[in-house]
């Protein structure tokens, strides 16, 4: 099973890379861009198992390693 994980900076936490990209987009004339957030996209391939259990396991992976809950949020898409 394929799992997609989107890790993004928490709201309110400074995102220097996002701010730099925002500045660059605006200087290119894309004034309509209000904000940019730069995060990470992680793809996991899991061995087949019980899908209910898999989601809980992936959540644990995010909490323990893949995201830092102090500064990052994450979203999981199963399958």
């Amino acid at each position, binding site marked *: 099973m394929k799992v997609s994980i989107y890790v993004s900076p928490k709201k309110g*936490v*400074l995102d*220097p890379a996002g701010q*730099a990209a925002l500045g660059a987009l605006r200087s290119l004339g894309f004034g309509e861009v209000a904000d940019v957030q730069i995060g990470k996209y992680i793809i996991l391939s899991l061995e087949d198992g019980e899908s209910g259990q898999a989601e809980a396991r992936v959540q644990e992976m995010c909490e323990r*390693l*893949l995201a*830092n809950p*102090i*500064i990052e949020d994450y979203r999981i898409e199963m399958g």
Partner: protein
Amino acid sequence: MRFGVVVFPGSNCEMDCFHVIDKVLMEEVEYVWHQQTDVSGYDCLVLPGGFSYGDYLRCGAIARFSPVMEAVAEYAREGGLVIGICNGFQILLEAGLLPGAMLRNTSLSFICRHVNVRVENADTPWTNAVRQGRVLRIPIAHGEGNYTADAETLAALGERNQIVLRYCDEGGETTADSNPNGSVENIAGICSEGFNVFGLMPHPERASEEILGSTDGLLIWESVMAHYQARG
């Protein structure tokens, strides 16, 4: 005094730390490989700078799960002295041995230069040889040294005097211009509640000999030795 310098794959300041302890302080020192699980017998553990595990994912995020880190955490819980320098500080944050997290420098640049830091608390094992308010000139070298923590954590750090070093100008003023990386409240180094765990972005080992342009870093090493000797 017997120091252990923990080496992760990707550490690159371990030889500098070893050199200062061995040749300048003239104390006993050994490397501690990241797969070692016994750190008893050391009087102080050093987590050196570098790019542990390539700093993939986040700085220090993978190193914190090295076998040695469980032993380091246990050592710290028992009151053992642990200093994390630069990447070592990032590892301590990721491991939860110190509160907060690191963001990329606001300038997005990797910064390698001498900075000034003010000693905010001279009553710790790491700063007792320094007068409170004294400005130390010590180099930094990092791309992610922008310390952050939520308001509650910052208030607690302040109340318990856990903020040990702040970036400042030559006169000791903590201005926005003297903050090299955007760290909240100009924070450059913090201690654990028990003061036995210390994390800092500046590299004291690179400012411990005249030839390197500053010996201010030596005061940190001398403090921990004085603390150890006073404890008996």
